[in-house]
């Protein structure tokens, strides 16, 4: 059985909360959604709320920075990687490569030799990442399952090593003095104030969620589902599998590049050590932990993967041990992820496939 086939395995029963929510009248759903979104915009202030604050606050480091440098990036990256892994069923272990392409494009264009404004570098970063996705995808998407996984893993490493060895990319020292987003009105983007980055980032996340939801329910989304469920059958039914797989790669890469560009402009410097292979693996962990193919699941996964090690900073060096054990435990007891994909959405019957 190949890896792609395994994605066919149907998911666990739906969460009751989700069903209850969907059975509410439309007005109620909209108002609950609006309240949640509004509450999320105030996330930087959460540590000041009595009980909630004790839960979310990260001892030893600034919660604001964890929120913008880690959680925001992981949510975006998880959403992007979910397009590749969750929607189209392609295993990508080198996603950090696209993230790096986005970050480095912004870094090169806005600092030193080019000095482009931030607003112009952003679309270029997304475009470059997308091109990287197509360049990687065109020769490799003929490969299936785990072969694709190892090739993408190699791609991620190639990007990092190239950055490490190229002088005009700053070599091991990297690039600093990357432009910040332009300040407007009360929102001043500076080193000391991370809040505006969250407002910007969360808005971007909302836009990405909206676009991806539309895509998932479109012709493209159905084609991805077909490829994921059974590539050969999809091909026989007239789906141009290569084209749609390439689209999944390009769109996933674009979101990864966007995340990287935002990261670069937030922290102000990049170097190859920010893009280690381990990061790719953490990205994948975020997707699977949350629930492969489920949009809200991967958001939750991204939040947890970014936040757990910071929340338990008190554990000091043991925190990655804790994180590893938590990964095993979640997979053992909730193998479909924390918020599994809804089975009814695809309209395919949810019978368990036997091994």
């Amino acid at each position, binding site marked *: *059985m*190949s*890896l792609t086939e*395994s*994605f066919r*395995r149907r998911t666990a029963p739906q969460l009751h909360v989700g069903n209850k929510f969907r059975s509410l009248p439309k007005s109620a759903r909209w108002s609950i959604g609006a309240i949640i979104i509004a509450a999320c915009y105030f996330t930087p202030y959460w540590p000041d709320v009595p009980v909630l604050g004790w839960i979310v606050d990260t001892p030893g480091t600034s919660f604001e920075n964890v929120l913008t440098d880690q959680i925001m990036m992981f949510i975006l990256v998880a959403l992007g990687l979910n397009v590749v*892994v969750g929607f189209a069923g392609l*295993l990508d272990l080198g996603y950090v490569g696209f993230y790096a392409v986005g970050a480095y494009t912004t870094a090169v264009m806005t600092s030193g030799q080019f000095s482009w404004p931030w607003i112009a570098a952003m679309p270029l970063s997304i475009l470059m990442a997308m091109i990287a996705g197509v360049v990687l995808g065109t*020769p*490799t998407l*003929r*490969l*299936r399952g*785990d*072969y694709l*996984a*190892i*090739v993408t*893993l*190699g*791609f991620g*490493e*190639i990007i990092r*090593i*190239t950055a*490490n*060895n190229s002088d005009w990319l700053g070599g091991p020292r990297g690039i600093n003095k990357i432009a910040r987003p332009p300040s407007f009105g009360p929102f001043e983007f500076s080193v000391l104030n991370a809040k505006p980055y969250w407002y910007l980032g969360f808005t971007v996340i909302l836009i990405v969620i909206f676009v991806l939801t539309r895509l998932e329910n479109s012709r493209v989304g159905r084609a991805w589902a077909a490829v994921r469920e059974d590539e050969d059958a999809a091909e026989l039914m007239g789906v141009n599998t290569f084209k749609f797989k390439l689209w999944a790669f390009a769109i996933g890469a674009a979101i990864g590049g966007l995340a990287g560009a935002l990261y670069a402009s937030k922290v102000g410097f990049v170097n190859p050590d920010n893009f280690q*292979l*381990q990061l790719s*693996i953490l990205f*994948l*962990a975020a997707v*699977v*932990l949350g629930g*492969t193919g489920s949009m809200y699941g991967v958001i939750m996964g991204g939040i947890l993967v970014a936040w757990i090690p910071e929340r*338990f900073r008190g*554990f000091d*060096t*043991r925190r*990655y*041990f*804790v*994180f*590893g*054990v*938590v*990964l*095993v*435990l979640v*997979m*053992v*007891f909730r*193998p*479909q992820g924390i918020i599994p994909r809804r089975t009814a959405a695809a309209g395919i019957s949810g019978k*368990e496939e*036997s*091994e």
Partner: protein
Amino acid sequence: MRDWLIYRTFWDLTVSGVALGLIYALVALGYTMVYGVLRLINFAHSEIFMVGTFGVLISLTQVFGINLFEDGEYPYRSGIVLVLILLGSTVAAMVVSGAGAVVLERTAYRPLRGAGDTFGAVVLAFLTGLIASFLFTDSMMTNLMIAAVITGPLAVVYVRIFRKGRQAPRLAFLISAIGASMAMAEAVATWGPDERVVYKTPRVLEKKVLFNFFGADVRIDYVIVAFGAILMMTALLLFVNRTRLGRGIRAVAQDAETARILGVNVNSVILVTFLLGGAMAGGAAMMFTLVYDQTRFNIGFLLGVKSFTAAVLGGIGNIKGALLGGIVLGLAENYGSSIFGGQWKDVIAFIVLLVVLMFRPTGILGESLGKARV
């Protein structure tokens, strides 16, 4: 200029490349066999190798009581003593790695196959208790006591959950493997005596040049690596091809469900596969420490990635493919880094892989543990 360098050192590069490749190949065997029976990239296999190098370290320093230096000199041994020490630490490494692989299988993978048992439940319950105890105290003794108290009742709960016997999706195995790998490496980094530093291992073997091969110095440790690797691989091939258990492994690799119906105990076959893969990784760990005289908590990661690349290069699931892939990769890295510079070593490895997969999408020799008679 550089072309000239490779011309001068070609045979040197070949010799050290083959030695490196054989170590890759031995680790690749673990990946390839587990992949054959479970279709799983066993990410934690690199940590099995790492644990093996620590097995060597412990057996050399604790069991044989050899210090890093004796009167400022390397603690060279010779004759029968040397042979005994080398054999002893090889066995130690194989036992440690094999045991690690078995615990890994029963804890992190078997429950995902819907066949979780008491052993896995106890280990998982203990780990749960341990990380829960971190919330309350930093004292290791208290942590262990809390964990021990929690283990019993929690294990009972876990066994009950396991009885439901749900089969997890393939990606869940991968993440479980990654989690286990992280936990193992970090456990060594956190509770090892010197934590995150490089551990030097005592150099018991004087690395004399044995003979010349087209002007290249062939050191005695390379010869030992070559003989050891070939010996272990031959033994493994014979085991898989000639014994009853080996036939079980091939049957499960071909079709696990049919094998189960025909009376093969799939779980024990998988356990044996992990044990064999672990033992091979242990052997590789011994050879690695013999050549490089050091180890570290994260030593497995990069070597693991390379070895997996070697396995894919040769054709994953194929035992001979692992050997070929390892040697090709070791040579490509050595030649490549001498032509383009050492910093491009890993890039060359992956480009070779990419090119090979372009033309042979299932590796040089193709997948085969189950598909054909090996």
